Every structure is written in structure tokens, then in C-alpha cells.
């Protein structure tokens, strides 16, 4: 692929954003009636649905942990979600398993699992439309769904990706930017304490560039946190008004 102009002379990217601008986020909690907690998030053109079931009885005795809850994450990509060919990615596809494992390990220390010994918390993520940023949208959707399910957590977990292209640090890469050979870094942050829970990068990045890219991603996480928190507060306010007798 030829070296594309990811960022034009006016500082605008292919989709019209600036270098440090997030994609438009739309999120809604409690969208599914059968799940204990659910959420729907859109980040730009990537759409993800999360459902949380739990805490409930462990399905397999082998997964039972005597002093805390077992967290199980499953990610599935709808066959029509990829922009090119239809890809029937089986659930045991290695890339999906890797992302699911990353999400599980991210949430394990955050969810207060010691409150629910011998039980299981299932997080199911369904990606309906893909335009880059799988890990970040999965983590954000899972956070919102866990809050909706009422599962106690220490903090929100917000994730964001960032990259570097010709001296510009870009925030929140879409599929075209991910494919264009730019180094991509995904960061998951605990916004209130400022601590990092996940850091993933798979390409070559100069050590000097690491800090600015990481800082930009952290800023993106904080912005996403603002949006998620606002959504949750509005939703709860709405529920409270509806259930109040006055």
C-alpha cells in the first residue's frame, strides 16, 4: 500500500478530524432485556454491543474459584461487520481470543470479584460494524455494561488508541489509519486515579515518541470517561425520576 496522506496540509485527517480529535461517541446503557446489564456503543463507524450476565453459577466445575468470581469474556465479530469480505470468524479465532483475554485481564483486578466467590460473571461482546479500534471499544462497552449490571467495580476503565504518523500524533485510529502501517498504541486507563491497566502496541515506534503518544491516548481515555460518566448519570437520573412517586 502506498504511503497515504493520513493527515493533509490543513491538519485534517481522511475523515475530517484533527490529529487529536476523538471519533464521535454514541452510547446507551441497558439496551437488552435478557441480560443483567448491557450497553451499546458507537465510536465513529465501529458499533459494539455488550451484554453482562452475572454473577451466576459457574458453568463448569473446573472454572470455579473458591474465593472469588470467575470472569469470562467472549468476543464475536458479526460476519457482515468487516468492510471488505464477509469473514465468518469463529469464536476460537486467535486474534479474538487474544483480545478477549486482554479484556478479561483488564477487568479482573477492577471488578470486586472477592464479593462473589464461586460464581461467574460473563461478558459477551458483539461487534456489529468494524472500523478500527476493537480493543478500545470492547473495553468501553464492557465498562458501561458492567455498571448497568450493578457489578461493583473500583473505577471506570476507559480505553483509547493513538498512533504516530510523520511526526503527528493521531488520536483514535480508524480502520484505514490502522491498516496504513502506522504504529498503534492502545491504552486503558483508570481515569480517576490516572493509573494504566492495559498498554498494547504491535509495531515499531521510536522510544522518544512513546511518551507523547501515550499521553495523547491517556487524554483520549479521559475524554471518553467524561462521555461515559455523563451517560450513566443521565440514565440513573432518568430512572430515578420514573420510579419516584412524585
Amino acid at each position, binding site marked *: 500500500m502506498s504511503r497515504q496522506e493520513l493527515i493533509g496540509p490543513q491538519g485534517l485527517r481522511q475523515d475530517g478530524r484533527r490529529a487529536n480529535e476523538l471519533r464521535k461517541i454514541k452510547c446507551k446503557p441497558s*439496551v*437488552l*432485556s*435478557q*441480560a443483567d446489564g448491557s450497553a451499546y456503543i458507537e465510536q465513529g*463507524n465501529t*458499533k459494539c*454491543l455488550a*451484554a453482562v*450476565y452475572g454473577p*451466576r453459577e459457574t*458453568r463448569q466445575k473446573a472454572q470455579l474459584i473458591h474465593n472469588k468470581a470467575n470472569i469470562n469474556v*467472549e468476543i*464475536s465479530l*458479526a*460476519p*457482515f*461487520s*468487516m*468492510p471488505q*469480505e*464477509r469473514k465468518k470468524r469463529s*469464536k476460537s479465532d486467535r486474534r479474538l481470543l487474544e483480545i478477549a483475554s486482554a479484556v478479561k485481564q483488564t477487568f479482573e483486578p477492577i471488578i470486586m470479584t472477592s464479593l462473589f466467590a464461586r460464581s461467574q460473571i*460473563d461478558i*459477551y*461482546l*458483539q461487534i*456489529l*460494524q*468494524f*472500523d478500527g479500534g476493537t480493543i478500545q471499544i470492547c473495553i468501553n462497552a464492557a465498562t458501561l455494561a458492567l455498571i448497568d449490571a450493578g457489578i461493583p467495580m473500583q473505577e471506570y476503565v476507559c480505553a483509547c488508541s493513538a498512533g504516530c504518523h510523520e511526526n503527528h500524533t493521531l488520536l483514535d485510529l480508524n480502520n484505514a489509519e490502522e491498516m496504513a502501517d502506522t504504529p498503534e498504541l492502545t491504552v486503558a486507563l483508570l481515569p480517576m486515579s490516572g493509573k494504566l491497566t492495559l498498554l498494547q502496541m504491535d509495531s515499531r515506534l521510536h522510544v522518544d515518541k512513546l511518551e507523547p503518544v501515550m499521553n495523547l491516548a491517556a487524554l483520549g481515555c479521559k475524554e471518553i470517561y467524561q462521555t461515559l460518566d455523563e451517560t450513566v448519570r443521565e440514565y440513573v437520573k432518568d430512572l430515578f425520576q420514573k420510579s419516584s412517586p412524585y
Partner: protein
Amino acid sequence: MVKNSLAFEAETFRKIQPQEYLRRFIQGNIRPDGRSLSQFRPTTVNQSCITTTNGSSMVRIGNTTVVCGIKAEVATPKFNSPLEGYLVPNIDLSPICSPKFKPGPPGELAQVLSENLNNLLKSASVLDLTSLCIKEGIAVWVLYIDLVCVNYDGNIYDASVIGMITALTNVKLPEATFEESSGLVKATEELSVTLKLQRIPYSVTVALFDGQHLLVDPTEVEESITSEQITIVFDEVGQLCSIWKIGGLPSSPEHLKQCMNIARERYKQISMIVKSSI
């Protein structure tokens, strides 16, 4: 006298005696969710919602939600039908939509539904498959119709049929031509070709409770305590496309007649809902 009464809360009663619970409601001609026996849940349809597809739709009947996406690919036609393309429907019932589905390969219900959808497309001749031909004997379009259920609250079949048909109506394909010299199929960037459906079938599912009460559009709870379901499919000119009632208690021809009338009425409702969703 000491009265020994066991007073249960409604919710407890529902869990212990689900059939008796439903019976009490039906005696008052109403169902637990407030609907009458012949009332459908609010139905909404969203078209062209997934941009990575050639055609898509999202259907909600009450809480049951199905997302349908169609992707088109090129393939070689079958040897004995060199002019025909393929329609491949498949529904995915995964643990995300309900706690009753376990993770793993598609279970019985998913496979039965996929097969039923396939039969409907074939037997009702919904699309003239020769319209999917690019070059006789060499290249045809294959339309993969993938349905993902995201919330399962009963009557998944009706939702899937509406989803599948509306997604087919908004499919946009590129113009494809077969180049003799290179042996490749070239397609335009622009998606301008739409499909002309020959028939537009919609289905109605009715559950039969206690051998006598017809519960239209059953919820998951109602489905689990009735063992009989009748599904009737009509098309746009009022012709019957298919009926099935598999197993369960025998039901009278009267019930079938009632179901057919209900199905005819509902067809008009669904048509209007779909028209207003474009």
C-alpha cells in the same frame, strides 16, 4: 380456627407454577405483559443501519431484536444450474441474547431456524436467482444473509423473516462484468444495482396454550410453557407461502383458520411498518 394459608407473591407463583400463572391471566382474557390474546408487540424496523454490508436491517418485535446483514461475494455456480446465484441465510443465536443459549457450535434451534429461512427463500421464490448471474457457468453472486440475534424474547422466526426480507430490499450491488481476457470479474466502485424481489413474504407465529387458546406473538416465557406453535407465511397478494406446525398437541382446523385470518391482518400491519422505515 387457624387458617393455614400459603400466600405467594405473584413472582414466586410464576416461577413455581408457570402454566397455572398464565391460565389465571388468560381466564381474564389478558396476558401477563398486558396484551390481549391477539395483540402483537410493538414492532420497529430500521433499514440500512450497517454500512459495511451490501444490505442490512434491524428488527425489534417487543424485546426480541435481530440484526440482519447481507454481504455479496462472487462464486462459481452449481454444475446443474449454471445461471443461478445463491442465497445463504444463517442465524446466530449466541449467549449474548439469552441465558438459555450456551457457547459453542450452533444448537438445534439455530440450525432449524436457518434451514426454515432457507426453505422459505426457495419455496416462495423470493428472488429470481438468475438475476444474480454474472457470467453463465463461470461467475454468480452469492448473498450471505447473516442474522444475529442480540436479544431473545420469543418469536425469533417472525423477526428474522422481516429482517431478511427488508435487508434484501435494500441490497445494493456493484455492476459486475466478466472479462474474458483475464478471467476475472470486474466490479464498479459504485453500488447501483438493486434486487427485484418476486414475492414479499412475512410470517406470523401463534402459540397454542392448553389446546384452545391462541397466543399471538409469544414471548420467551410463553414459548417455554406452550408446546405447540403454528407459523403461517403470507405474501403480498394474499397467497399462502407456507404453514408449519410441528408436533405438540393436535389442534383443530378451526385454529388454523383463525391463525390464517390473523396472519392476513398482520401482513398489512408489517407492510406499513416496513414502508415507513425507509
